């Protein structure tokens, strides 16, 4: 039954989630912005550059991918908006993160249903990089 409570709960949930995001995105964005003025980002970028080049993303995007895969999408978003990515690069990392995010929490939940999670984590990581590579190739064709 839809009552006034339904609307209230939805609105409240929306603002609650946004507030939760604020607590994640702001510090992450701040940390990455400040790190951007130090050599740290350049160093990380150099290490992950070769792996990420396959997806057409800069090395520092690896920080966003790892954060999203382990923690959650919102922390990754704080990083993505701090990097200067093209719209296609944002779409690429978005697809990769959509396939592979919050692996720890979500796998724990799926495990509770009694299924094996290791193959599922592999499917998610593998598909993320496959798609990342495919989108890089596609991006080169389009643009």
């Amino acid at each position, binding site marked *: 039954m839809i009552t006034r409570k339904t609307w209230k709960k939805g609105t409240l*949930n*929306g603002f609650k989630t946004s507030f939760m995001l604020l607590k994640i995105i702001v510090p992450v*964005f701040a940390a990455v912005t400040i790190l951007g*003025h130090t050599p740290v980002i350049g160093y990380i970028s150099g290490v992950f550059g070769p792996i990420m080049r396959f997806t057409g993303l800069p090395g520092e995007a690896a920080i966003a991918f790892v954060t999203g895969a382990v923690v959650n999408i919102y922390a990754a978003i704080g990083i993505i908006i701090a990097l200067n990515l093209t719209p296609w690069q944002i*779409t690429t990392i978005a*697809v990769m993160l959509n396939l592979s995010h919050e692996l720890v929490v979500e796998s724990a*939940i799926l495990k509770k249903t009694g*299924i094996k999670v290791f193959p599922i984590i592999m499917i998610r990581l593998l598909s993320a990089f496959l798609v990342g590579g495919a989108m890089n190739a596609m991006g080169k064709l389009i643009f």
Partner: protein
Amino acid sequence: MSWLEIAINIIIGSGKTILIITVILVPFMIILELIRDARLLDKAAVFIIPLMRMFSLPKEGAFPLLAGVLFGITYGSGIIIPYGRSGELSKRDMTLIGVFLAVCHGMVEDTLIFAAIGAKWWVLVIIRVIFGILAISVAAKISFLKKDQQEKTI
């Protein structure tokens, strides 16, 4: 760049994103509650049963599948876990649903949030659905997951 400029950059940069996300998220959460309270999920489940038959999944799986696709694994878990445990679905069925959901879940929220920071939303949806179907097709072919050899969970 001075510290003041960096601070302003942080406030504007993250503030803009939070604002866009809030504008998208609040109506979305209201719609989710409306769907939940109007029990629309039960009704919508009917529409995906023919699709599920392609993978010889029973109609009991429609509800947890739809809940995961729409609400996400974390939100939908309240529905998904009891189904996994009830034994209503075989281990084979639950695994197939799990494989699909691992790739395709929280389709509305995840898509909207990335669209808010400039990603092309249709690319996100199309690629996830393709991979979800691919993953479930491959899983359905694996011998120990074949319909005739299923065992009940717990």
